[in-house]
């Protein structure tokens, strides 16, 4: 099964900020049990979104520059980016349904 894209400080700009489609980024840490649980959800989401949005994750300990750049003060933090801008931020674990609802809502705004 396809997995979410793994981001680093080095490829964040290219893969997220310069992406031609919206990108959902999960800022996570290995010591964070809710983050581990979100991994499964993101993989399911990737399948469900079927390419309309990119799904990616970035480890905040291994990539502290990006974490600082986006003021990550708790994990998991999930940010939806579009055209290089943050358009929505969720903090804490979320169910797949909650994420899908958020994405649908934001996509309507983007298209409008």
């Amino acid at each position, binding site marked *: 099964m396809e997995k979410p894209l793994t981001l680093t*400080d080095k490829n964040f700009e290219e893969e997220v900020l310069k992406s031609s489609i919206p990108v959902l980024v999960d800022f996570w*840490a*290995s*010591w*964070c*049990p*809710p*983050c*581990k*649980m*979100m991994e*499964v*959800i993101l993989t399911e989401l990737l399948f469900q979104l079927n390419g309309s949005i990119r799904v990616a994750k970035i480890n*905040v*300990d*291994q*990539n*502290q*520059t990006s*974490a*600082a750049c986006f*003021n*990550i*003060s*708790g*994990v998991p933090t999930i940010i939806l980016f579009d055209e290089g801008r943050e358009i929505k931020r969720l903090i*804490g*674990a*979320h*169910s*797949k*349904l*909650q994420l899908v609802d958020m994405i649908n809502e934001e996509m309507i705004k983007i298209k409008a």
Partner: protein
Amino acid sequence: MTKFHNSDCTCWNCPAINLAGKVDFRACGQSALKFEKKQDETGDSHIMAECKRRPELGLFDPTSITFEECPEWRETQYGYLLKNMRIMILGMDGYLGWTLALWLGKLGCHVSGIDNFSRRSWVAERGSHTIVPISDMTERLHAAKEVLGLNINFRKINILDRELLKEFIEEVKPEAIVHYGECPSAPYSMIDFEHAAYVQKNNVIGTLGLLFTMHEVVPEASLIKLGTMGEYGTPLTGRPIFEGMFPANAVLKWNNREWSMGGELTPRDPVSFYHCSKAQDTFNVYEACKYWWLRSYDVMQGVIYGVYTDHLAADPRLRTRYDIDEAFGTVINRYVAQAVIGFPLTLYGKGEQIRGFIGLEDAMQCITRLIAKPPEPGQYDVVNQMSGYCSMRKLAETVKKIGEKDFGLKIEIQRVENPRVEADRHPFEPIFNKLPDEFGFVQSDMLEKEIHRMFALLTRPEIKKRIEEKEHVILPKTWWSGEKKEVERLELIKNNNHAVKKNGKAVNIN
């Protein structure tokens, strides 16, 4: 090249790595300010790896080398294992500890271990003995060398003696620690205040001391900590028994609002003062991982059974213990012993209690696979280690069927009063997917095969005689209410339907 469950792990998981550079032990109260401050001070905010085995590599990106690529990790049938991996077993003289020592030794690991031989004393205190005779540690180590060519580094240490434990850990510098060094008996903890306090002190304080020692000496080693499915109890809501934590799709709804429970520890409902000690351990280990970036798998083991691994069977001096008394005998082991001497197999109450179980060889495989894929820094995770589940009644019927069919025994089943406080009938839906899905565990479908092996060993005249000598310790006398009396028979079950179902995979014969 074979793909293993740990092929893609990197130095980030490896216990032979010192993390260097900007390691930030933030636990859960991390702050953006701290991130910014670090950046300002150093201009560089990356964590680097330094290999203790290959210091000539200097500092490098910890995610740049996989286990598959690293020459220090070599291929085994259970995934990549560090060459000569240093593994310390706490409680090495016990049923599981000794079995694992031989198992890991034969996989090329450098095995060390401690024990203070308490298990031998506890069983003797209850008036019993291991029905499979075992050698003393000197003889065990001698036989391990002579028969299997293993050098096992053993030290007689009480886990509560933190000074000696620390000294040994400093000397060995284990890369993984398997913690079996606890008193594993619910009835023993329910005898009286002294026993309850003893069990809780030995287990909780012993583990707490170990956590502090690991923090001080080997924070990068993985801790494989033995818990028990009994920590969860049997929730009467009928909700699944998750693997320690709720999945993210588990949602709490209240007052027209909802929250994902993802990653929160599931409620524990321990079923004895012993199980309380295990639940307390869970919280202590969880916190230590959070505070200090220790790494641990908490293994919620189902009821264990069996006598066989190739190594245990290689020489009589290498056998592991086999207890049948009410405090230390596990249920399937006890049933087989009862069957051999014509003692009706004992169900407590209605006998419909459902438990998860796992065979000895499968348990060894699971622990090896966990060692092979060490948790990440700060990672606390839980696995439910079982290969199937069924009611006590069905287990007794399985033992009866095999004993009668293959060994010509006449076996009866009886119901006795239940000395425990527990639901006789209850929902039970355990989740046990992580070991097969994430660690490549393939169960050996061994229940009937292993019961057969147990009968073959226990029907030997010299062992049967040892069971007969201890017939009087089989029935429970320890009541959760505090009473001390032998349980009374409620029913001798006449007609059993051998309705034990079996499928190719999980033996869910409930």
